[in-house]
């Protein structure tokens, strides 16, 4: 169609750490050797924990859960840019991010074993509980961002979701409101190419998630999600924009779900082994290790040490988890309201009496 252009945009992609372990020096964010070590350690811990959880699940000691393996670059790179007084609003695949925020492995195990007491993420950590309904929690992030701005705090909010979530109405309402109210929120999409069996190309006709920002007048950018430096850099910049300018950002981390969707899924039904294999080669932990070895931050001994240390922590947590006594039925009624209503009191009493009679 003819005529006069009104607005023009382009969407960019950030890459820092190449697959061969070298970095684009100009873009490399300033990170101390110690910080890079911590990044690496936490990515390894996340991976080992994920693997151990998988085994526990297969043994029937945990329920269904969604694995993070392969997405550690995206997930840990992003939370690494957070301050403790920032907020994290997770979806359901964020065990790595949650650990970083101070939620304990024991607590996560408890939650994923089907014990609601595990959901009690301490308020002081400013980390919301796990949100299962896809896309819905982005609005909470907007509200919290609004509150931080209104309260005059310079904290920002980081919220995670998958590319599948971008198809929901709530995603759109959230980004639109974020634009209108100019709230300090970073919308972080882990585009892992699948929403259960549905590939990204069938999720939307847009070639990138990042460009969805344009419809809301906010800033959008894509990063290589298996490149922890690029992720960190983009997130840190977005958080700064959020803090100083109260501007929201949509970040698309281009990554891949190398595992099944959850422990209930069988991904071989809908994708090829070759596709998975190709992505396995782009493993974010391995890529970082590559870099660290070249920098002299990592050698085989240290690598083994870190892995062993992670395993030790995981084992400790599993042990603590296994010693938790099962929840009492009273838990069902404890947190419906601040104060138990009459109907709930009656129902609780009836339940307890019923089970008393059965003893």
């Amino acid at each position, binding site marked *: 169609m003819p005529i006069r252009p009104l607005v023009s945009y382009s969407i960019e992609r950030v890459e820092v750490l190449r697959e061969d372990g070298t970095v684009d020096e100009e873009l490399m964010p300033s990170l101390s050797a110690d910080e890079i070590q911590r990044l690496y350690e936490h990515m390894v811990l996340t991976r080992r924990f994920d693997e151990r959880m998988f085994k526990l699940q297969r043994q029937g000691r945990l329920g269904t859960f969604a694995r993070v393996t392969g997405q550690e670059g995206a997930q840990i790179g992003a939370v690494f840019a957070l301050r403790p007084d920032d907020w994290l609003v997770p979806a359901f695949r964020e065990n790595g991010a949650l650990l970083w925020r101070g939620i304990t492995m024991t607590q996560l195990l408890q939650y994923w074993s089907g014990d609601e007491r595990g959901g009690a993420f301490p308020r002081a950590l400013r980390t919301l*509980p796990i949100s299962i309904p896809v896309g819905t929690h982005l609005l909470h992030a907007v509200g919290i961002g609004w509150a931080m701005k209104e309260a005059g705090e310079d904290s920002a909010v980081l919220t995670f979701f998958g590319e599948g979530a971008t198809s929901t109405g709530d995603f759109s309402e959230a980004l639109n*409101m974020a634009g209108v109210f100019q709230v300090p929120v970073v919308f972080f999409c882990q585009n892992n190419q699948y929403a259960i069996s549905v590939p990204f190309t069938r999720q939307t006709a847009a070639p990138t998630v990042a460009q969805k920002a344009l419809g809301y007048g906010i800033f959008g950018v894509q990063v290589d999600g298996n490149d922890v430096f690029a992720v960190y850099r983009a997130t840190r910049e977005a958080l700064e924009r959020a803090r100083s300018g109260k501007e929201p950002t949509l970040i698309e981390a281009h990554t891949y779900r190398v595992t099944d969707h959850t422990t209930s899924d069988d991904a071989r039904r809908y994708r090829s082994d070759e596709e998975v294999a190709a992505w396995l080669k782009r493993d974010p932990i391995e890529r970082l290790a590559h870099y660290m070895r070249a920098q002299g931050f990592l050698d085989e001994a240290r690598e083994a040490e870190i892995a062993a240390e992670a395993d030790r922590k995981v084992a400790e947590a599993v042990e603590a988890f296994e010693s938790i006594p099962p929840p009492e039925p009273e838990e069902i009624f404890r947190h419906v309201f601040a104060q138990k209503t009459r109907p709930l009191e009656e129902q609780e009493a009836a339940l307890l009496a019923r089970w008393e009679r059965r003893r």
Partner: protein
Amino acid sequence: MARLNMVEAIDQCLLQEMQRDERVIVLGEDVGRDGGVFRVTEGLFERFGPQRVIDTPLAESGIVGMAIGMAIAGFRPVAEIQFSGFAYPAYDQLVCHAARMRNRSRGEFTVPLVVRTPYGGGIRALEHHSESMEAVFVHVPGLKVVVPADPYEAKGLLASAVRDPDPVIFFEPARVYRAIRTEVPEEPYTIPLGKARMVREGRDVTLIAWGAQVRIIREAAERLAAEGVAEAEVVDLRTLSPFDHETVIDSVKKTGRAVVVHEAPRTGGFGAEVSAQIMERAVLHLEAPVVRVTGFDTVPPLAKLEDYYQPDVEAVVEAVRESLRF
């Protein structure tokens, strides 16, 4: 004491609650400069400015979802949904998050949120503007449901809702908004949630309703008394969740008869719950089965047929006669 209509009473309550607690903020479509399509938030924008009286984009799920976030972070949002017929897009946020955040986080994060919304028919409105679907909110664990019957009630109940630590949906009967005036004290006051109101004492039959129907059962009671048919006890439930069964049951134990009235569709309306509880708690005291006078299991009709749909005084009187004849 000033005689206010319900719009004025609610507006005054919001103003006072916002003065009392600076965490209270109001948001919704057209609540700001326009003062709300029913003028319920009139003057608040001028008084408190755009930071605390927020015109939102047109997105009901967004309004409630964002308000949940505000509440989690320490504010006390009072969200308006322009008509309750437009609350369904927000149903997911209410059911899955507002009502559950406390439970999910074991009390670490809570949602002291009020969702106000005009509701019910009788105002000759367009499709979707006359909904009375309170029952589908009552059935949601973790949500409180309040329906004021007159201006005095509205002010006191809304103040309680705003101060409540949990999410409350507050249905404002649109046909009552400007239809009646009551004395409304200038100073703030609260009416506790979860406690029904005995509007009129009687001995022959218990009439139960909430919202706009309270006026109808009250008139019915007067007519019944005037005609010497019966002395009816009139109960305004005020809050459907939590439901104050005691007031109802005590009354029915005394009168032995009950008529429950709502304009919502009959099947699965809250009248069924009232009837079931009377069955469970007072069946031996009943002289006749509980009668439900309700709307129909149909789409609420447009203006021209509305009068056929709405329960009216005559229908209630008839139901009482039926109960007495049993």
